């Protein structure tokens, strides 16, 4: 492989669009998302259910539903412009994926060992004996106790947290440079969730791997991610370093999201954002967030706000200067 210029980002995607259906029924799920992932970095994509964050993850690994379609202006991998076809060829090798629901992500009729070894078989030049060894090593790496003897166990013999570790072992098997983790702790206990994220963090550093983390939990984002993209109704409303976003959120939606989380420590326990996220076919004119926004003015309904570049972050709100947290 050619020497990687460390100045080049690992993956850069410009103006990503995802839509479902065609013709009159065409619905835009993601509208113009740009993403830059540096080597060794974790970039979080944050948003409520329906914001389009999973569509972004699925688009990158070409796993969209049959009626889903995506395009981007440019895709750059390790500094080189590549086509969608070339990106597709990277999946399962340089780019791997961690499924949302660990209980459904494993084939119930095959042993976990077989499933890990299969990934090795198709993506590494290892011999049969080496694959066996490597599978055990991978299971040890994701901290499955007694790995060698668990190789012949079936997925249903593991707990949810252990199943997700197996999924992670499969995702790590081809030694990827980028792991896309789509809400990897859905349905797991909070304690197990913390363990999985700690593991992911440690492995990311050990293996110098980048992670695109799809999440709705800001606490997770604060501890695991370096950068975050806040997605609302398919639009990027704010993005930047996690430090900047948490220090000074600029977009009313980000402010609202942080309030929901922050105020857990306060007297008033719940502080939700009023209203709900619009469905795919009911996106409003102008700023997508204005129907739920406390600061909205007539201008917000008139035009779609551009992403305004600030120090350490960008925000898509015309009122960002006058907002206070």
């Amino acid at each position: 492989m050619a020497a990687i210029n460390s100045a080049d980002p690992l993956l850069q995607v410009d103006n990503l669009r995802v839509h479902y259906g065609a013709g009159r029924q065409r619905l835009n799920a993601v509208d113009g998302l740009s993403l830059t992932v540096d080597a060794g970095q974790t970039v979080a994509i944050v948003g409520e259910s329906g914001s389009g964050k999973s569509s972004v993850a699925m688009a990158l690994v070409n796993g969209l539903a049959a009626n889903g379609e995506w395009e981007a202006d440019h895709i750059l991998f390790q500094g080189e412009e590549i086509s969608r076809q070339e990106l597709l060829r990277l999946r399962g090798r340089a780019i791997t994926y961690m499924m949302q629901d660990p209980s459904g992500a494993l084939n119930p009729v095959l042993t976990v060992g077989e499933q890990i070894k299969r990934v090795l078989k198709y993506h590494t030049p290892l011999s049969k004996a080496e694959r066996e060894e490597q599978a055990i090593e991978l299971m040890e790496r994701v901290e499955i106790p007694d790995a060698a003897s668990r190789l012949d166990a079936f997925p249903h013999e593991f707990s949810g947290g252990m199943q997700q570790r197996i999924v992670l072992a499969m995702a790590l098997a081809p030694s990827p440079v980028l792991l896309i983790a789509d809400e990897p702790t859905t349905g797991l206990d909070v304690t197990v969730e913390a363990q999985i994220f700690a593991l992911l963090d440690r492995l990311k550093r050990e293996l110098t791997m980048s992670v695109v983390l799809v999440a709705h939990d800001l606490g997770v984002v604060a501890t695991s991610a370096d950068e975050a993209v806040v997605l609302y109704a398919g639009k990027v409303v704010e993005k930047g370093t996690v430090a900047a976003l948490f220090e000074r959120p600029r977009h009313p939606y980000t402010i609202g999201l942080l309030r929901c989380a922050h105020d857990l420590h306060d007297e008033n326990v719940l502080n939700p954002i009023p209203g709900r996220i619009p469905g795919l076919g009911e996106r409003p004119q102008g700023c997508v967030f204005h129907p739920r926004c406390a600061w909205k003015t007539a201008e917000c309904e008139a035009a779609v706000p551009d992403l305004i570049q600030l120090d350490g972050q960008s925000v898509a709100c015309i009122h960002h200067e006058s907002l206070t947290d």
Partner: protein
Amino acid sequence: MSLFKYIGRRFVSAIPTLILITFLAFGLLYVTPGGPVEALAGIFGTPEQKVRIREELGLNDPLHVQYLRWISGVFSGDFGEMIVMAPGTPIAEMLRKPLLVTFWLTLGGALVALVVGLSIGALSAVRPNSWLDGFSRLSSIATYSIPDFWLAIILLFVFGVIFRYRWAISGQIDFSRNVLFSLQSMLLPAIALGLAKAGIVARITRGELFDVQNKPFIQFERIMGLPNRVVIKDMLHNGILPIVTVLGYTIGLIFRGTFLVEVVFGAPGIGLFLVRAAKTQEYALLQTLVLIIGTVFILMNLLTDILYGVLDPRVRT
């Protein structure tokens, strides 16, 4: 649990049901009107004759002694003798040929049900909502609403009465004599039996194969870049599981269906025998048939359980 242990356990759990079947078959003797004594003595039998017959048949012995005598006979292949239809002939010999006929018909029917059901189901799963899918869904509802014996009569009428094919009405199935003619004779009964059950197989196949393509682990395998043939193999393996569950049951239904279809086509299987045995109060024959039919159903279910255990590790626990 290992597969071996699982199979062993299924076998053991089938034993109580088998024992229950022997009780039922044995008890039949005492609930049928008339019973063997009336049958043997005839309408004009004197009370003295009847007493003698009872004595000879051992009917005065305690029940458990009679049961043990009967069951030990069964285990050594002695099911008793014919009394009315062919006096003195051992039941085992009497039943050999009819059992073969019924076996071939059940096999033929099961083949038709599987081949037609699986292919129609798979085709409509691949192209959901196409005209083929619509046709197959409609025809599966139609076929499982049609009783097999009705279909048998219609087929017999069309091919036997209108077209006058000799094989359509012969009912002669004897592979030791004429293989081709036997196959021809089997054709219509097998279609009548199989088509009536193909609908249910097609519906389940369509549903399962359609669902399995959207299962998260199939998606994960694709995203992880596994070759297409591997993913398709996994889809088939997982999609086939629920089909297996109805398989044993369906074959059981086809086996049961042969009784009436045999009567329609005049095929000398055990269905035809069952009717005659009941009519003539051939009690030992009736007992044996009840025993055989019950055992076949239990074995079919056992086979289903074992097959399922082989295919799906989750049921072994």
